[in-house]
């Protein structure tokens, strides 16, 4: 025994010395002008044309520039690589480009670059995953070195919005490097330059000192993928990471009290609603949902305000119609259904279901914040008026989508829609409420008419009226129980001045160190 202890002593002593001299914490941020951001999944590729991932979009906006940019404070689209975008006729838009802009490799940015980017995205031979963001374009014509005409297939009011999703790539480099080259290295016109990318480990960017616009305050950016929320928060508290997103609302108070970081939130476009199978698209869904009184009962049963207050800690915007309050066309004069369980029971009885009935609630994790808890709160609310609910949860986005488009996601679905960052009511009305769309479980011909009308004209006033009528139909028929627009909740190191924006794109190029 003594020999064992004697043997251990030097080992323990060495260990103690080691621990004492260990650098341990030193995660200095301000001193080396580096901000580390943790995102939930690894970067798929450096080519903005070949992915649809949120984490990729965030990175793209730092190394590349979009043609038009959305202002993070006003939410309005403003000039970026394009100086102006004007309609020439119903199908043609003239885009005048900024001069004197260079890609990070020295290539000039001009009309050819725009044409090349859009053409390559559209080309089915390339099989780019982000094709969908360019299919609305029928042709790109180079008029002058810094002017392009973009032709659309039909009169299209969303051109400006969709131009925020086109990020030009350098044509000569792209042709030489090919798909693999573009996937491995990012060369854009943006405020940051690509330094290195160790897949799944970190992406390192450095400030572009020749940037044409306002230069970012932070010199070095590191983007790291960390999937586990607890780990992200631990890193934030430790100072190893300075910005994290999708912070669970329950952790906000804790982070705020930590002294190392604070929580900031901002309303975003993503809206959460309870979709009801009004059309009876799913043969297994309960026939009660066909009855308007039942749908109204469900809307009165769910206590949305309590969900916002307790589960989301107030970090959400009540939506009266199911459309994001931030989207163009949202009718802010509309009133949401009141929480009234007694009225709900009465309506159910009138419809012939005094003892309620059973339904399935489908949920999918990933986009609705705290969706388990929201789903269970809904479950409890419905149980109170006699509706027994079973939760059917999906973790696999493929299966979820397939069930949805295949007409197998009947009864109720707790869904969210990000509208692909396009702040326009059309982007949610069409896919969710138009009877022809694969994801829609509604069938109201009058509504279809309005939706079609709304996208066929470019007159903003007319569109507003059309959409007001559309939202009224949604509420009258209670096609979905409107809930709320989510907030983007981010955790930010206390030394950093940074605010989240409404389109779920974190703009670190606007961040600065506190004095």
């Amino acid at each position: 025994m003594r020999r064992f202890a004697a043997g251990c002593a030097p080992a323990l002593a060495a260990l103690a010395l080691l621990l004492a001299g260990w650098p341990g914490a030193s995660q200095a941020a301000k001193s080396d002008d580096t901000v580390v951001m943790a995102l939930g999944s690894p970067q798929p590729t450096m080519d903005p044309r070949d992915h649809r991932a949120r984490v990729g979009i965030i990175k793209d906006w730092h190394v590349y520039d979009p043609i038009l940019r959305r202002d993070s404070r006003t939410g309005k689209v403003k000039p970026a690589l394009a100086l102006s975008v004007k309609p020439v006729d119903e199908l043609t838009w003239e885009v005048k480009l900024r001069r004197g802009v260079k890609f990070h490799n020295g290539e000039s940015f001009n009309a050819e670059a725009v044409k090349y980017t859009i053409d390559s995205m559209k080309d089915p031979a390339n099989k780019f995953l982000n094709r969908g963001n360019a299919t609305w374009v029928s042709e790109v014509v180079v008029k002058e070195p810094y002017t392009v005409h973009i032709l659309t297939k039909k009169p299209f009011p969303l051109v400006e919005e969709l131009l925020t999703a086109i990020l030009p790539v350098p044509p000569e480099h792209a042709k030489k490097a090919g798909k693999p080259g573009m996937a491995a290295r990012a060369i854009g016109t943006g405020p940051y330059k690509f330094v290195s990318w160790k897949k799944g480990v970190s992406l390192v960017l450095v400030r572009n000192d020749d940037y044409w616009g306002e230069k970012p305050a932070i010199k070095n950016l590191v983007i790291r993928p960390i999937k586990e929320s607890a780990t992200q928060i631990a890193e934030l508290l430790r100072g190893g990471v300075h910005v994290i997103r999708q912070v669970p609302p329950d952790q906000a108070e804790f982070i705020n009290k930590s002294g190392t970081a604070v929580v900031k939130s901002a309303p975003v476009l993503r809206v959460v609603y309870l979709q009801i199978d009004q059309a009876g698209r799913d043969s297994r869904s309960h026939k009660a949902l066909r009855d308007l009184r039942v749908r109204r009962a469900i809307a009165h049963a769910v206590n949305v305000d309590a969900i916002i207050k307790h589960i989301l800690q107030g970090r959400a915007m009540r939506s009266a119609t199911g459309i994001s309050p931030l989207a163009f066309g949202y009718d802010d004069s509309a009133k949401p259904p009141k929480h009234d369980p007694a009225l709900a029971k009465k309506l159910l009885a009138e419809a012939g279901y005094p003892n309620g009935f059973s339904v399935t609630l489908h949920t999918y994790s990933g986009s609705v914040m705290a969706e388990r808890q929201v789903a269970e709160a809904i479950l409890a609310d419905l149980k109170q008026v006699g509706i027994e609910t079973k939760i059917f949860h999906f973790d696999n986005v493929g299966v979820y989508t397939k069930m949805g488009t295949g007409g197998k996601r009947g009864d109720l679905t707790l869904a969210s829609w990000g509208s692909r960052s396009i702040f326009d009511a059309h982007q949610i009305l069409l896919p969710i409420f138009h009877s022809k769309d694969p994801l829609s479980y509604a069938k109201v011909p009058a509504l279809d008419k309005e939706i079609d009308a709304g996208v066929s004209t470019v007159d903003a006033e007319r569109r507003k009226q059309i959409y007001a009528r559309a939202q009224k139909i949604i509420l009258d028929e209670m096609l979905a129980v409107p809930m709320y627009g989510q907030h983007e909740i981010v955790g930010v190191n206390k030394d950093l001045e940074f605010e989240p924006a409404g389109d779920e794109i974190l703009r670190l190029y606007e961040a600065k160190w506190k004095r």
Partner: protein
Amino acid sequence: MATETRMAEAAAAWREAPLDVRGSVPLRHRLWRVRYGLIGAFAVLVILAGSFLAPWVAPHDPYRGIVSQRLIPPAWEAKGSTLHLLGTDQVGRDYLSRLIFGSRISLAAGFLSTLFAALIGIPLGVTAGYFGGRWDNFVSFAVNVMLAFPGVLLALAVISVLGPSFFNLIVVLGITSWPLYTRVVRAEVMSYREQEFTLAARGIGGTQGRIILRHIFPNLISTILVVSTLEVAHNILREAFLSFLGLGVQPPIPSWGGMLSEGRTYMLNLWWLAAFPGIAIFATTLGINLLGDALRDFLDPHQAA
């Protein structure tokens, strides 16, 4: 696992040990050796009783949650209340009640999946070991393929096909466990096959089936018992693992794995959400392991000192 080799050898030694050695270790002595196992057995019995008597023992309805009462800490903390001894969860449900009802799922998952694995694995192992030949080659090949398969992938693939549910959970856990039974049993049966008593039985003219059932099978029981107790513990841990990946039993059904998985984001501040299910899993698995070890020691004459 090497447990299996050890099992096989322990059982073999037991059979071969002369009768007087077996008898010479008094019961009292053997019970003292396995004192930890008795503690384990006691713990397991308490937990089992709790889960059977759940509706009477639990203070609240584990499904009923009041949103305004969510995330209340345990009673002894500052903001706690005696109404909820172990606090409430993210939807306002009483945690103690959920823990008690959750034992049903976790224990059932552990036992049923092990039973399923045994029902598949034991017959395969016995027949492969006894009859040998092509059937044995086939079964061994199947076992090797199953064991080469990273268990995770199998679980994920199956559940993402079938969807997460209690029944599918049992199926998946059973599928990952059966190769162990087959391997262990096959090895033992192969060694018995050549034993004197088998040859004697064959000489007398017993049929194959009878020989297997009446002579070989009883000898396997001790091994099967020990392996089973340890597999039950493993399957309870695997249920927690599958819940970590989101493939376990779905809410609002309470299960320890699910509660632990949901609570892990909050381990930094709302510690009780992860701590209590973790302790429950730990205590149960520990108890079962101690019980299993004790069973093995009890049956093993080598540790006579």
